[in-house]
């Protein structure tokens, strides 16, 4: 059928949109919005995890993998009408790494030459980024980085116009100007945002919709009820568990529900610095005690059981690894082996929104079966994160709601902050406090393999790293969540873009409306 240009849609979210500044925005709501307002040098093919060129018309990589030269597309205009140039690229990268910007993504750029000076406040700009000519940028790295092109595709690397940033200062996030397919038309705090089609968008035929309205402050359940009544088009927070069975079992909605994978793992961390989790037997016992199938049943089968940190669609996933089986008897035996035949008492921290406390209660019951009495601490997200970042606070944490969803589809993104030594510091995200120097070295080595030809070799190294982590049982992986979403009948577009693994949750640029005349 023929796709017509025009129309609009309504997307709902529960939480407020905090900021649309690409250097700062890092949450569920603004991630995909920023992607539609801004472009970076690189991007992914819609609905996939395959890298593609975006504002970069072309690029070259030096043989040692440390120099990237990007050739920019000509004639690309910011929403303010000015043409984007190489100066903007340099400005954007300098800005995101500048400590004054307080970007949560600054760390991604650590491999660019001069990053340390900028981070320390000693230099104003990255010495590694140079403007060769108005349409050429050269980026030198201080070490080879296999993930660098991915880094150039995340939101933090979006290109922003200097003059607008300076005009609005700290409020740039409220007045975003980029080169993206949509521009911000109106933002009523706490109520809604309206995006308007960028007429001058450089990519032909994109976007299809004239307008997107984001309504915020809506409970997922209310959002879905509204969608069922035709008042909304996409529930941004997904199908709430309470309605999941109802809509999935209803034939009326069969075609409207879309399932997709995501780069997600839900896991229980065990703090290896806090006895008795310093004993590997205890950690293994926990792994064997958890009945993952039942937990998946509790969340209505919206996940697949996990046996290793990496999700299945991530390069480096080990299809042959069996993991720890569900075996309470063996688990008990392991506890006995560790000198704890009667079990012990401990605590498990959890983010206090549904379904996490529920999942934790199931885990708690499983642990009780082998004699581990875990008290549940259901807290606000910030408090759980704070507890995890202390060496002696949280013996166990269920990661749900705060869990790791990869920033980009590369195994390295699943290691450093959450399993590596660099994350095992006060305030870090390695809540297991697991630090294996050997594996860290191996990771560094893997990441310096930039040669596309050696891709398999690199993946193999990562596979080894994650299986070693499992041998030490630093985590008890529980499941990989599947994403389910729903769209209204009016909307068209390939299913994949509604569960886009990168444009989370939806790739707005490629959605169209069926009811356009």
């Amino acid at each position, binding site marked *: 059928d023929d796709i017509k240009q025009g129309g609009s849609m309504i997307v709902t979210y529960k939480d407020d949109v905090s900021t649309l500044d690409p250097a700062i925005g890092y949450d569920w709501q603004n991630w995909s919005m920023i992607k539609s307002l801004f472009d970076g040098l690189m991007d992914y093919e819609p609905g996939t995890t395959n890298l593609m060129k975006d504002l970069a018309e072309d690029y070259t990589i030096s043989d040692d993998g440390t120099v990237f030269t990007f050739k920019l597309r000509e004639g690309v205009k910011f929403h303010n009408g000015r043409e984007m140039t190489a100066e903007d690229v340099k400005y954007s990268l300098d800005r995101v790494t500048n400590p004054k910007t307080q970007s949560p993504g600054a760390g991604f750029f650590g491999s660019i030459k001069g990053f340390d000076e900028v981070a320390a406040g000693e230099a104003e700009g990255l010495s590694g980024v140079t403007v060769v000519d108005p349409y050429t940028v050269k980026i030198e790295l201080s070490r080879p980085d296999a993930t660098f092109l991915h880094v150039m595709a995340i939101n933090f690397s979006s290109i922003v116009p200097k003059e607008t940033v300076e005009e609005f200062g700290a409020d740039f996030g409220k007045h975003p100007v980029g080169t993206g397919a949509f521009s911000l038309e109106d933002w009523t705090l706490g109520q809604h945002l309206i995006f308007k089609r960028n007429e001058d968008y450089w990519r032909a035929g994109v976007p299809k919709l004239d307008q997107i309205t984001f309504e915020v402050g809506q*409970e997922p359940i209310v959002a879905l009820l509204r969608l069922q009544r035709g008042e909304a088009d996409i529930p941004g927070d997904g199908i709430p568990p309470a*309605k999941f069975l109802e809509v999935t079992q209803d034939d009326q909605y069969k075609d409207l529900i879309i399932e997709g994978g995501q780069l997600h793992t839900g896991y229980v961390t065990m703090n290896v610095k806090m006895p008795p989790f310093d004993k590997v037997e205890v950690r293994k016992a926990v792994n064997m005690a958890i009945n993952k199938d039942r937990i998946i049943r509790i969340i209505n*089968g919206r996940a697949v059981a996990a046996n290793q940190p990496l999700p299945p669609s991530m390069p480096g996933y080990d299809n042959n690894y069996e993991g720890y089986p569900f075996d309470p008897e063996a688990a008990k035996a392991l506890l006995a082996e560790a000198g704890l035949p009667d079990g012990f008492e401990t605590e498990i921290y959890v983010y206090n929104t549904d379904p996490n406390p529920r999942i934790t209660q*199931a885990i708690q019951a499983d642990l009780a079966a082998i004699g581990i009495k875990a008290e549940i*601490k*259901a807290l606000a997200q910030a408090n759980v994160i704070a507890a995890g970042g202390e060496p002696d606070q949280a013996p166990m944490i269920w990661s749900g709601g705060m869990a790791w969803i990869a920033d980009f589809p590369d195994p390295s993104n699943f290691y450093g902050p959450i399993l590596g030594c660099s994350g095992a510091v006060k305030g870090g995200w390695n809540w297991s406090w697991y630090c294996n120097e050997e594996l860290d070295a191996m990771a560094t080595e893997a990441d310096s393999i930039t040669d596309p030809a050696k891709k398999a070799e690199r993946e193999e190294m990562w596979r080894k790293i994650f299986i070693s982590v499992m041998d030490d049982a630093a985590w008890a992986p529980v499941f990989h969540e599947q994403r389910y979403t729903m769209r209204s009948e009016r909307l068209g577009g390939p299913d994949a873009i509604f569960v886009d693994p990168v444009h989370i949750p939806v790739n707005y640029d490629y959605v169209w409306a069926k009811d356009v005349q």
Partner: protein
Amino acid sequence: MEAGKGMSVSETVVQQAVVEPQERSVLRRLLARKLALFALVLIVVIVGAALFAPLVAPFDPNEQFFEGLTLEGAPLPPGAEFWLGTDLLGRDLLSRLIYGAQTSLIIGIVANGIAVAVGALVGILAGFFRGWVETILMRFTDLMMAFPALLLAITLAALFRPSLWIVAMVIAMVNWVQMARVVYTETRSLSEREFIVAERSMGAGTFRILFKHILPHLLSSIVVFGTLGISTTVLLEATLSYLGIGVQPPTPSWGNIIYENQTYFTSAPWLVFIPGIAIIALALGFNLLGDALREVLDPTQKGRH
């Protein structure tokens, strides 16, 4: 000797004759009220269930039954095996409600008890002593009054990591204010009353006046406010639970049962409305009782003649 004995017997008889009809009349007058009787029955049922939970409850409240969920993971509606249905983890709702009554009552009695005690003490001291004692206590009360109670509760709960006792303390901390206000105004007007002036003119000490003459008069307000407070605190715990900072799972409380299941009100309404009705019943019971007590204890109801 004989005569002496006879005397004392008759004396006790007189005493009983005088005292008894009064004491009996409070209870009798209470029972004479249909609403109060209804309230008492409600309370007895709930308190009984809480006290004898292990005997009354059909199942372990924390047991996650395999057959308590459908294969898709949906909870079971009320039925033959699980009378009030199961929750999202396949636990028996009735058993959780019965055990939850314990939590809710502990909150209602301990938290509220502390709130009442603190509030009454602050109010009575401020109302009686005036001067700087009054200034300090009442300005602090004003301050607490203007503090959005729920925000305070949320912050405190976050600060101390929720547990049953912390929640109880938090609730006590935000709930004493109203009591203090009420007792304060009443003490103030009481200490102006002529019989207190008369006591002072006789040379009665502060302690005597406060505890022998003022306190008994505050009792009916305190009792009434205390019973009203039971429902308020149970509701506050429910609200804290609703916001996810109440009593920690898997300990059931009526509030957190609703909280855990609130979004399922279309697909599993029993999980929300049955505990909701339980809360209303408890609060209603205590409110009705408190109201009846107020009327029964109020001396003006007895009349002067």
